[in-house]
């Protein structure tokens, strides 16, 4: 059960694994046979699964950088502009005095950097995630799930491959 309402279900095979090496064997074998759009579920991130999937680095870092730079520029921009907009001499200091404004710029760097990082995860998950993929509640507990999108002609060979790799449960998902 997920928050996202599914209008269309993807057709394919959903397999559950208890053993991590069985799951990675299956992933490697499937990828070797040309199955690229696998969805792997796990209760915690796992290095072995990532290696088997040969994932690229998430582009989240770009959003963090841009958010941080925006915050820094906004911090200096706001303080300098506001000081010049109402030029009031305080303590004999320069009107737009940079050292004290570093604090504001620093705080806004962190603030916008953090918020854009979280926004990026939400955005990327929606953009790069796929809807209508079967799920099982045991995947947030102790099992690893592998969903293989497949047409009706491929269901049998994929199921066979998954079972031989060590899947404890395999089911077909019709569109």
């Amino acid at each position, binding site marked *: *059960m997920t928050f996202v309402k599914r209008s269309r279900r993807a057709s394919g095979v959903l397999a559950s694994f208890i053993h991590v090496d069985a799951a990675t064997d299956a992933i490697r074998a499937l990828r070797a046979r040309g199955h690229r759009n696998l969805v792997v579920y796990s209760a915690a991130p796992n290095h072995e699964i990532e290696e088997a999937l040969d994932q*690229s*680095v*998430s582009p989240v870092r770009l959003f963090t950088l841009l958010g941080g730079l925006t915050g820094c520029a906004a911090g200096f921009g706001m303080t300098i502009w506001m000081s010049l907009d109402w030029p009031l001499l305080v303590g004999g200091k320069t009107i737009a005095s940079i050292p004290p404004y570093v604090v504001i710029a620093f705080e806004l760097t*962190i603030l916008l950097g953090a918020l854009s*990082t979280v926004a990026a995860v939400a955005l990327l998950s929606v953009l790069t995630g796929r809807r209508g993929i079967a*799920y099982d509640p045991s995947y*947030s507990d102790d099992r690893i799930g592998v969903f293989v999108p497949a047409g009706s002609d491929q269901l049998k060979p994929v199921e066979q491959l998954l079972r031989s790799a060590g899947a404890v449960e395999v089911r077909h998902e019709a569109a």
Partner: protein
Amino acid sequence: MAVVARPTPARKPELELTQTHADVTRDVVASLGKPSTGYLLLLFGAVAIFLAGLTTFLVLVKDGLGHAGYNPPIFWSVYITTFVFWVGIGHAGTLISAILFLFRSPWRTAVYRSTEAMTVFAVMTAALFPIIHIGRQWIFYWLLPYPNQRWLWPNFKSPLIWDVFAISTYFTVSSTFLVFGLIPDIAAVRDKVTGWRKTVYTLSSAGWQGTDNQWRHYSRAYLYLAALATPLVLSVHSVVSWDFAASIVPGWHGTIFAPYFVAGAIYSGIGMVLTLIIPLRRALRIEHMITDYHFDNLAKLTLLTGSILFYAYAMEYFVAWYSGNIFEQTTFYRRAFGPMWWAGWTMIICNAFVSQLLWFRKVRTNLTALFIISIFINIGMWFERYVIIVSSLSNDYIPWAWGQMNPTWADWGILAGSFGWFGMWFLLFAKSFPIVAIQEIKEMIPMPRKRAGGQH
């Protein structure tokens, strides 16, 4: 190839977890079950104390700050003391959740969720105090740079405005960090519960399914959030210390204030962590997850920060003497032997000396002793701020202008109410959301393998 930045799997024997992934989910979900009578009594007590504080606050709003014990020249007293106290409490949470994450310290996993929640609620409590203190609470937004009729802007050269930015950033980032870390755990709870609770957890899990794609972005983002929270936490108490150090009041105008305050903040925060989790682990029956090993490590951190504080106290007195500045010297002499000597010595004994007991392993692993020490730390750290603020203001330059203040019912009422407010949120959180990070504990437990042999 994505490299997931996570603490490396446990190697120390103390961390060899015997549970399976299913055990972890079961135990943590069980801790969210029906509340016990003890829990309800605690919650009732916290709400009652909070309501007493709220009543005091409403009287202050109606009549003004005259009820509080302000007396010239002391116009910063219990509210600012308590503000600094609560901001400091938050720091240990971020240290454990973010800094120890970057240092790949595996023992943090069992305790970090509770400390992170403590951070958020402590900062939420702290943020109330400047508002209470300003007297005209309904115009607190004057502190913010918002476009107004006369196009007046705040004075960005003032440390008080730096503080507005530091505290609001700290609150936003630490609550984001907490909520972000909770999402996979909420999904794990969602998949175990039924009825209306399932609906609530489904909505709060934001569609989390733990797919490879979600973990890919999540793990990276978590690393960056930790990397951003680390300098933030060090900056926040530095900025708070500059509220004092950037002035020229004797006793405040010290260059060591920023590191001194940061060490004190972490020290006080770990004191509060111990006060909270020693009873909590028993109440939620998670003793097998938070063990002597975790307490030993927390106690070592307390010892480290307590010793830094010891050094800072000694250095403050040394610098006052070595400066040859009569005002500085008088202030520090009066801290130890003036009218507030009792507060000065409470701070030194509770913070500098009591923490030294933690050199002994027997003390570090004795939970009763640790709990008692943690209470001393809480008291000592509140008094540290009270001494720094009130004793410095009470005698500045001209002896005829010196004065003393005594806290009144309005000061104590608000102080007590802040503990009720904090306790209420913490207790509600502990029963509503996983107080032990399910997903990170699972990461520490090697998954079963069909082939014998080492793990990856």
